[in-house]
């Protein structure tokens, strides 16, 4: 059934820089403004009386159809963003490029004749700008962080790991991505030096002196690391990025040196004792000869 809704088709709707589609209670198009006509390539005359899935047969309209049903049943207003639902409708800009859009779905009309208003917002420019910025940032980021031989982890201010580079997963024996979302305590629990550094960072004391800690690998084995960390803030929220240098070799060398020092003392003591024994023996022999 196509209702005649002359009052809905205001010429003002055709002046908007936003797509406006109005559906009746049967989810059939009653209004299709000039903007959506241009972006979809479907004229208002052709669209009127059809349902969205008939107009866009190849599109994945699950979310939009649920939102339409919710608005007609209970008046719910829904927002469908390009972030979670990219390119819901196959729309084009006047120059023929993909048109990125957000969609809002809300109820209109009254109890007797429920209507659903779908508005389509062009976010192509903003999306493209965001994507360019993100790609540039990610390229820089990957070049540095992904290839770094040192472990790099970023934590939120509750101590949850939000980022771990490949050296982190490898160094601690985790699968890629496995560390993200876990508390940093899985790596270094009961490390007073770290706890002190963490408290200092969160209270904004600036750059902290690097400290040595013993971290725990997934298999439970210890790993000696030197940690340097700093705090950064995004959208009012603090993050801590820590760089952990593997000092296991240095630690092993120090340990060997310490061992050598300890045995050196022992050897010196033994040698001295031997020398004293010989001296005593010589002294005793001398005494014997004098007699």
């Amino acid at each position, binding site marked *: 059934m196509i209702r005649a809704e002359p009052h809905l088709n205001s010429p003002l709707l055709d002046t908007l820089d936003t797509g406006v589609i109005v559906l009746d209670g049967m989810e059939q198009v009653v209004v299709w403004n000039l903007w959506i006509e241009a972006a979809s390539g479907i004229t208002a005359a052709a669209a009127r009386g059809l349902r969205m899935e008939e107009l866009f047969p190849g599109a994945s309209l699950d*979310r939009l159809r649920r939102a339409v049903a919710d608005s007609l049943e209970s008046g*719910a207003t*829904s*927002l*469908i963003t390009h*972030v979670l639902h990219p390119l819901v409708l196959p729309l084009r800009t006047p120059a023929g490029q993909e048109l990125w859009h957000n969609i809002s779905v809300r109820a209109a009309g009254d109890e007797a004749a429920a209507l659903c208003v779908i508005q389509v917002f062009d976010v192509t420019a903003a999306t493209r700008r965001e994507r360019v910025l993100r790609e540039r940032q990610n390229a820089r980021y990957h070049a540095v962080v992904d290839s770094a031989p040192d472990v790099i982890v970023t934590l939120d201010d509750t101590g949850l790991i939000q980022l771990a580079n490949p050296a982190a997963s490898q160094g601690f024996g985790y699968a*890629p991505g496995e560390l993200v*979302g876990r508390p940093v305590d899985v790596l270094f629990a009961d490390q007073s030096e770290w706890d002190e550094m963490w408290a200092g960072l969160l209270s904004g004391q600036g750059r902290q002196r690097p400290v040595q800690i013993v971290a725990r690998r997934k298999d439970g084995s210890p790993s000696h690391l030197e940690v340097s960390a700093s705090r950064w803030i995004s959208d009012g929220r603090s993050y801590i990025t820590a760089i952990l240098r593997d000092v296991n070799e240095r630690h092993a060398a120090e340990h060997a040196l310490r061992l050598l020092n300890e045995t050196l003392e022992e050897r010196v003591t033994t040698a001295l004792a031997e020398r004293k024994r010989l001296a005593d023996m010589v002294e005793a022999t001398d005494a014997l000869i004098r007699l």
Partner: protein
Amino acid sequence: MTSSSAVLDDLELDALTELVNIGVGRAAASLRAMVGEQVHLSVPSVRLVSRDEAIGILDGGENRKLVAVHQLFQGDLTGRALLIFPEAKSLELVRAVTGGNLPLEDIIELEQEALGETGNIILNGCLASMANMLRRSLRMSLPEILRGECNIFFSLAPPPEAGDVVLLLYITFDVRQRDISGYVALLMDMPSLRNLKQLLREFIERELGAEPVDEHDSSRAASE
């Protein structure tokens, strides 16, 4: 029990819990279609508390930072709906709904819109269940993200008249092996609360009249 809890009795709160669970069950189905994996949402409890109590519960005495998705609703029930959770869980929720292994920078950038849409689905689930019970519709605003300490969320201008009572729904999400819990807070004015009470009574009478009492409680945990 606070003086405010006299506004809705235990039976009415139980009925509301059941209705809201049906609503979040629908929201879970929408989220599942979106995420492509099982999503469980449930509201184990609904409490009617004073504004100060609500702040105490949400704050946990730590002045912790929270994030909220806010929508206004108007009609026979008028007020604000807020989906609130600790800011620390916000990135986790975005990670859960976007899936994949997006870098932290991407997650931070997508956070605002992804949260808005996800919160919108959940709040619509709760509000739609109440609207359906009313058998009429509520007008709702688009979702908006708020951040900060929770006393800010409860002092948005203009305050609802006598808006000292908050319906607080504890809600748990289970998405991609992540358990994330938060609260839905409904701030309504007194006439709305009285309408809600009346409508819940009618609902209970209908339910008790239509079905034997022992089957009435069977659909408490709505998850899809």
